[in-house]
């Protein structure tokens, strides 16, 4: 499914907007209709805005539900606006003409997608594809730029989000450009994931493998076969153990040595 018309997926109807009743989308999502009543907003950088700014945002956003596998925007496309990810996860990738794909990040709820292109007016730099059913609040470019001019608090939060994205991009360049081997990159990725899960201090951190070997390969710039071989090797050396889709890091020290082998 390629992003086309805004209302092509399931846009929340104006009737539902005003009744305040929770709406169930076809994708099994409980749509958060109003940012003003969203319980999660205090935990999310962009969303934690003063009431006046939130009210303005409410009037320009389109709450939309997408199924898994929907493309929000494509690399090279003229920027139409921003997408605030309320629920679900989105894969951000860049692609070569020969079809080789590099996944930069899996965006989590609270992230604003398409920000830099919308602000600068340059084409989207990445492709954004949902990997879960998602709720997304879309804001048209001209509305968003006006909103930023009128609400300095929102402008500041956008600067913070852009800073994080820039830091991530630098991290990605370092990992791709300065890592010696695919094994080193995979070890770094597994340690990173375990630290995000709050498992970093545990003796044997656990992490849920939400991506396929193909997608992990696209995250570290290698082939699916290499990732499968590396996992087999890690299991053989009892550095990791697979329990269904959960991966247990049995020997964190060995994984750290692999990650810092350059």
């Amino acid at each position, binding site marked *: 499914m390629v992003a086309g018309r805004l209302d092509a997926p399931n846009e929340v109807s104006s009737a539902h907007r005003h009744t305040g009743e929770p709406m169930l989308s076809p994708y099994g999502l409980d749509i958060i209709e109003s940012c003003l009543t969203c319980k999660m907003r205090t935990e999310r950088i962009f969303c934690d805005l003063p009431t006046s700014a939130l009210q303005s945002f409410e009037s320009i956003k389109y709450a939309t539900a997408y199924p898994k596998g929907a493309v929000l925007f494509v690399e090279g496309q003229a920027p139409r606006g921003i997408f605030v990810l309320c629920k679900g996860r989105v894969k951000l990738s*860049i*692609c*070569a*003409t020969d079809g*080789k794909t*590099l996944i*930069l990040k899996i965006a989590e709820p609270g992230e604003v997608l398409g*920000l*830099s*292109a919308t*602000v*600068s007016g*340059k084409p989207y*730099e*990445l492709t954004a594809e949902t990997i879960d059913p998602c709720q997304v609040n879309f804001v048209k470019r001209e509305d968003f730029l006006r909103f*930023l*001019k009128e609400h*300095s608090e929102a*402008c*500041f939060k*956008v*600067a*913070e989000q*852009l*800073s*994080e*994205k*820039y*830091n991530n*991009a*630098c*991290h*990605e*360049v*370092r990992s*791709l*450009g*300065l*890592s010696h081997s695919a094994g080193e990159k995979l070890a770094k990725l597994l340690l990173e994931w375990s630290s995000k899960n709050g498992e970093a201090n545990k003796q044997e951190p656990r992490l849920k493998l939400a991506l396929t070997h193909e997608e992990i390969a696209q995250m570290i*710039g290698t082939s699916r076969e290499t990732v499968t071989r590396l996992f087999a090797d890690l299991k053989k050396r009892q550095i990791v153990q697979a329990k269904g889709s959960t991966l247990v890091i049995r020997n964190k020290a060995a994984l750290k040595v692999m990650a*810092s082998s*350059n």
Partner: protein
Amino acid sequence: MESAIPHSCLDCTLRPDRLFCDLPVSTLTAFNAVKSDMVCPRNTVLFREGQPARGVFVLCEGRAKLSVCSASGKHLTLRVAGPGEVLGLSAALSGSDHEVTAELIDNSQVAMVKRKDLLSFLREHREACLHVVTLLSQDLHIAYDRVRSVGLGRSRRSRTRAS
């Protein structure tokens, strides 16, 4: 080492050409009050990767090389920043460590603003905050282009040339 750039941003004739500096007089006056001017010789390291962000550096004159480094000392140059650019913005705003090293490759004039002063300046001056958002968007585009060229062996520039 002398610089042709005046010490007051209000007297600088170059500011209309520079994205961050082209600010209203009241905003510039406030900026003047929080910045410290420095004239630095080439090879000066403004900040190092992994160091906590103390503030930002506006490059008034000269150029700086932005690079990342591996534990073994292998370097990768991200880009060369030119006059008018603001260095260290993302780390200063997010409160994280610097992701890159900035080293001057010319004798340069730099205006430094401490992190705490920058944050209150941006909160008080919406115009400046908008300029910062635009600058960060541009930085991000360049960074993604670098990811593309390092990870996939191509850049926007090479694609444009190819098409």
